[in-house]
């Protein structure tokens, strides 16, 4: 476990393998909600929070439940259920403890249950930080940090996109390209520009 490893996890999950622009996870809310910055921010905050929490929980389950009992093949099934339950739990806790926060991003929480970014992050953590059924040193911290950074990457892409799309409201965009198609084309140019970060070395 060293600082360079964390730095490269940060750069690669925020920029190079951005969860939306390169891994294509969580695209549906990306094109649907990114029209308004406030909503986009609330959604991204919710996603970041849930991804980080899910990274913690799924890592613990994989390491202490599935691996010891030789049940690794139940990974997908158990992760999906755990994430759904986790989202419900977070929703209930937030509703009881902080109505303000609940109003800010509560409604997005239910949408996240089947967001592929969350399950994707969990599966990716397991694929990357478990080698031959054994946790690599520092695996837990890497997983949680990577989950958090994927959330950050999600937030970055969402915010940039929502800013651009708010400006496009004023533009004379060809009618066939309005909304979805143009959102994808912009995402494509963004993805091209983020390629500038590829091959990062410290």
């Amino acid at each position, binding site marked *: 476990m060293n600082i360079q490893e964390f730095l490269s996890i940060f750069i690669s999950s925020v920029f190079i393998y951005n969860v939306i622009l390169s891994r294509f996870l969580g695209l549906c809310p990306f094109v649907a909600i990114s029209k308004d*910055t406030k909503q986009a921010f609330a959604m991204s905050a919710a996603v970041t929070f849930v991804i980080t929490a899910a990274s913690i929980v799924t890592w613990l389950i994989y390491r202490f439940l599935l691996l010891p009992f030789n049940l690794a093949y139940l990974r997908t099934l158990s992760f999906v259920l755990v994430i759904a339950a986790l989202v419900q739990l977070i929703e209930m806790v937030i509703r009881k403890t902080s109505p303000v926060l609940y109003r800010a991003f509560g409604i997005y929480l239910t949408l996240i249950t089947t967001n592929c970014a969350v399950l994707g992050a969990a599966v990716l953590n397991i694929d990357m930080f478990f080698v031959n059924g054994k946790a690599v040193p520092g695996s837990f911290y890497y997983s949680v940090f990577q989950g958090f950074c994927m959330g950050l990457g999600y937030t970055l892409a969402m*915010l*940039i996109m929502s*800013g*651009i799309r*708010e*400006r*496009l409201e004023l*533009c*004379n*965009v*060809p009618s066939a*390209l309005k909304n979805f198609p*143009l959102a994808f*084309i*912009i995402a494509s*140019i*963004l993805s*091209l*520009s*983020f*390629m*500038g*970060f*590829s*091959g*990062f*070395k*410290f």
Partner: protein
Amino acid sequence: MINNLIVSGSPHIHKQESVSRIMWTVVLSTIPAGIAGVIIFGLDALWVILVAVIAAVLTEAVFEIWSKKKVTVMDGSAVITGILLAYNLPPNVPLWLPIIGAVFSIAVGKQVFGGLGQNIFNPALVGRVFLMASWPKYMTTFVKPLSYDAITSATPLAALKEGKILEHISYLDLFLGKRGGCIGEVCILALLIGAAILLYKGYISWHIPMTYILTTAVFTYIFGAKQLFHGDWLFHILSGGLILGAFFMATDYVATPLTINGQIVFGIGCGLLTAIIRIWGGYPEGVSYAILIMNAATPFIDRYTKNRIYGTS
């Protein structure tokens, strides 16, 4: 007398400026760098520039006729896109490369968003990063300056990235453009002449170029060498596409922030990203990526650097 008394809404005093006048002046200001490029790399460079300009203008015309808009190719903005794209290409590329690049620049970088004045990204740079991702082989093969027979040579920044020593290139060589590189980026002297025209006419302000170049210089001075505060900042200013980018591409009217504060944020952002990519990134040069990323962030910068409206809090 009575004919002069016209009742109309503001603005009442018009300046003799128009989009096409500004654009053609920008075209004029890019000519010194083009001439320098042709002198340094030979006629190949001229063909690349011409082909890119013609392809850009034709694409714009085709799109405007197809979508039944007014054909505005004579306003010079497509010409600039073509020129800037060509300036960002190596001189010895096959000629279909600038054609595809120009078509992509105008179609995806500009017309998709609704044409002149509505693009989010600098169209020429969109074309360049597309070519860079598509045909890296052609985009990173550079020829030796003043040899005219396609002897390949690395750009100073690429050589630096590979850890080679560059003792035979002096700062004066870099300033005059005696080095391998893209057509329009090599001759700093010619670029500065063009930039002076634009600054003198007031078509660009100094905020973005100055903050951009200064930030890159400071950052490369601090982190550019193994030891802190030993970086060769002058080398980083004079090599690569920094001067071309800072004066001619980071100052695009449409894709950059409106207020002075916003422009300073934009310049600093470009400078940081350029330096970071140059020092730690996989590519030797980061100017085009830096400007594109900051273009994307521009609507956001604009929102937080609005001027206060009088009478409101």
